[in-house]
């Protein structure tokens, strides 16, 4: 059973503040989903566990034709919540 403290810890890892209502409802909701997916435990696997991520293949290409500096700057800066001289502005970290 998940408790409020577990939910708080997960929310912190996910960088989300939850409302009090969410904190109180989420343990039950998440628990009901987890108990549903627990049925996976009953599946006995004969599958090669190496293959678990699917049939992956590498897709590579030459690093060429770069976009010219400044091509999209105006549009990208326009989407920034805060900017100065075409730089993204955030609060100081140190």
């Amino acid at each position, binding site marked *: 059973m998940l408790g409020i403290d577990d939910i708080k810890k*997960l929310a912190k890892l*996910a960088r*989300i503040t939850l409302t009090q209502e969410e904190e109180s409802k989420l343990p039950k909701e998440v628990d009901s989903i987890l108990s*549903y997916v627990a049925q996976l435990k009953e599946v006995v696997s004969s*599958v090669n566990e190496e293959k*678990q991520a699917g049939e992956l293949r590498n897709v590579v*290409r030459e690093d060429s034709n770069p976009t010219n500096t400044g091509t999209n700057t105006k*549009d990208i800066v326009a989407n920034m919540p805060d900017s100065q001289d075409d730089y993204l502005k*955030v609060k100081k970290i140190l």
Partner: protein
Amino acid sequence: MIDLKNLTIKKAHSALISGDYTAVDLASAYLEQIKKTNKDIHAYLEVFSDVIEQAKKADAIIKSGKSGLLTGIPFAIKDNILIKGRIASSASRILENYKATYNATVIEKLKKDGVVFIGRTNMDEFAMGSSTENSAYGTTKNPYDLERVPGGSSGGSAAAVAGNMALVSLGSDTGGSIRQPASYCGIVGLKTTYGAVSRYGVMSMGSSLDQIGPFGKSAEDVEIVFDAIKGQDKMDSTTIEDQKQNIKNQNGKQKFKIGVPRDFLKVGGIDEAIVKNFQESLDKLKKQGHEILDIELPNSKYSLAVYYVVTPAEVSSNLARYDGMRYGKRVSGSTGIEDYFLSRQSGLGREVKRRIILGTYVLSSGYYDAYYNKANIVREIIKDDYRKAFKKVDIIATPTTAGVAFKIGEKIADPLQMYLEDIFTVSINLVGIPAISIPSGFKEVGNKKLPIGIQFIADNSREDNLFTISKSFLGEK
């Protein structure tokens, strides 16, 4: 007056070419219809202000004699697909003012064809949901009954077509988000083969599952749009080569072996009207000369459990980018890290937060093996079931949904109940194969007729078989 209700791409195209009406006339007819019905249905989050200008450009192409099938055809686009210079919000508060800085590959292709983009359609926030009730901008209503949901997550795109507010539309399907709303709204919706259509410029939800696909009123319309948007793309390394040249016997077959997974249909909770309609549909297919066989998909019943481990895991990773820093809504706190917390608190809705928390849990150390790894192993087992089945049959048929469109508010309080809506559709995304939902009848509830859909499933890259069987079923030539 243009008969929007019975219009198809080919009919519109020939009218545009012969000069019966112009692309401007056609676009105006849809705008008129939107004016009348969108306030009740709320399919669109935004109707673009330059629709007529776009249509004028299409008319110029038609006049020059260079038009294709899609020139001047009005499209509605799901709000998670980027059109340069326009807002794309994924129906989320955190992206309420986000303007796309580039075109999705599918948009680029449609632009070259000269289509007219009517507007962006409502959806469940970041495509998480089965009803559009998780939209931050209000619920879309089902055109067949305004008290009911249109399905989701691509509910706006389905309602726009069903409500004659666009001829065709694009949606995205991660666990049924095209097929389920198509079924609820009585239209055709296609989930394409994983990798068949580029996802460059669509907002990621579950990257190993997401696909873009079309909605239309006929299988033929959906086929035309699919042909226009498919293809390998250097901007999306998960796209695959067009397989057509490798497929044998692709033109010949008209009569199919259709497999029915009887065990899977006994999962419980299926509306009797759906079961009855499905049996009638099978009888109809038999009469048309197709062969019906029982098949087994013994592990399909675990699909939903796998889905609700894999999807939240991918969601929690993919949605980490929405932090109010580089774009979107930023809520300022006292420190930089507090900005993240507050922006995500106020910008993301409840279902999104629920899945992020769940995903964070199943990926956390100590639980990773029990949930995520195990889910991936079971996913392989389910794939194997389908591989075996397609050695015996060409097509697999199931109902699209367990019930008809439900009432607004009926399932929102219980996430698991909502998830169970996707029981017949999710396994397809886990396997990566294509599937289509087409209308197969109605259930009468009170004085309302609510649509029912049937789902046809084909092997990888065999959308051609889906179109053939759908046209046969719907009586299209």
